[in-house]
């Protein structure tokens, strides 16, 4: 039998894991975006109740968080080994290298996956420590809704995005999200071995739609709050 670890470390297994973990995260992002669009409604209670519901999931939440964390670490591990493998596999680079066009899918998104990915991870650390653990957050962000005391995430988000530089930081990151998904989505399916003359064009199209929706969905929220919502 092929030991699991050997299979997982092979060039195919590695990319298989990258694809599975990546596509799981895409799913998470879609749900995350759906939840956050409540922010645009202007109803602070609705958003806070939604956040409170998530936090009250208890152990289930820990499991989900653990899966997300484990997956992203696997995803990063796989990404970094691919990037290092690339340097090892071609120690002497070309003096001139051009795209071939035609069937090539070597977009800017594709060639910058390692960079967009690493930046996204840094962002993730900042994002979670800021909103989840409220590192460096001054002031009391709690509120009482219907007799229940809960975090006032709504106000925290609105206050955070009242700073121009912070909004700008998010905007840049969300363009990276778009870029990462632009190549990542269809590529994930290809790595899983899903390639069919009938379905592949659909998957490719869906990938672009999801990249646009997720990237620009997240991009709109800070802009809205900064220019309209905060007013």
């Amino acid at each position: 039998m092929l030991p699991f670890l050997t299979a997982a470390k092979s060039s195919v297994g590695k990319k298989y894991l990258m694809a599975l973990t990546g596509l799981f995260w895409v799913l998470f992002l879609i749900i995350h975006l759906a939840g956050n669009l409540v922010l645009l409604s202007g109803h602070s209670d609705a958003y806070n109740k939604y956040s409170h519901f998530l936090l009250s999931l208890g152990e289930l939440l820990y499991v989900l968080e653990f899966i997300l964390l484990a997956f992203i670490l696997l995803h990063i591990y796989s990404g970094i080994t691919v990037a290092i493998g690339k340097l090892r596999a071609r120690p002497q680079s070309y003096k001139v290298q051009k795209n071939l066009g035609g069937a090539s899918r070597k977009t800017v998104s594709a060639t910058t996956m390692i960079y967009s990915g690493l930046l996204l991870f840094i962002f993730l650390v900042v994002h979670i420590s800021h909103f989840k653990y409220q590192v460096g957050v001054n002031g009391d962000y709690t509120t009482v809704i219907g007799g229940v005391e809960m975090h006032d995430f709504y106000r925290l988000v609105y206050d955070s995005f009242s700073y121009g530089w912070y909004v700008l930081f998010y905007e840049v990151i969300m363009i990276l999200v778009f870029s990462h998904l632009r190549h990542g989505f269809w590529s994930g399916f290809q790595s899983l071995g899903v390639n069919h003359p009938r379905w592949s064009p659909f998957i490719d199209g869906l990938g672009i739609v999801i990249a646009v929706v997720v990237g620009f969905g997240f991009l709109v929220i800070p802009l809205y709050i900064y220019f309209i919502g905060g007013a």
Partner: protein
Amino acid sequence: MSNHAEQSDMRLHLKIWRQPDADSPGKFVSFEKEKVSPDMSFLEMLDELNEGLIKAGEDPVAFDSDCREGICGMCGLVINGQAHGPRRSTTTCQLHMREFKDGDTITIEPWRAKAFPVIKDLVVDRSAFDRIIQAGGYISVNTGNAQDANAIPIPKRNADEAMDAASCIGCGACVAACPNASATLFTSAKISQFALLPQGQVERKERAIQMVSQMDFEGFGDCSNYGECEAACPKDISISHIARMKREYVKAALTTA
């Protein structure tokens, strides 16, 4: 009659990678090549350059070629950053100088990959490909051991798709063009060919595992789905074969006892 306007002879600036042997460092050397006829093939242009070098008592530029009709897979140069040059579905030997213009600068490099070490100038060692095939790119049938050829019907569609994969000439352009120097398209073409045919079923799982392991062992990079391989492939082999290889491998890895 001709697709291109009548061209007259050209003058070209060539920048060619020269490397005396595997162990010595290489460098680019410039040459001026005059009287290049648009009807010449790219390799005939280099032949003429070499004629001049030989007469001058200099070492001619070493490059591989054999059939010069696009099927043996022996030739292969990176021309201006493109494996086999600018024309699609074309090997270096069938690339003609009419693709270039008078006064052009052409940079000529060997396939660059750790698994394809340079032997001399533009000649590389592609025996890693042979070893990938040796790992399982065959159906184990001794001579004399076959049933009647028509005993097993094969759906035309499968036979045709297997033929698409089997048309690989093993030139290595996929590796050369891949930003990761991955041999996935080459390896997948053989795995896919046999996975599509009833004769290939018996050794299907073993083949996928062995060939992928050998490919990894040789030091090729991973597949990032850039698709440059398909674009560079002179036989237009599709990355759908890569997807099939991935299915084959994972199925084999999960179900082999």
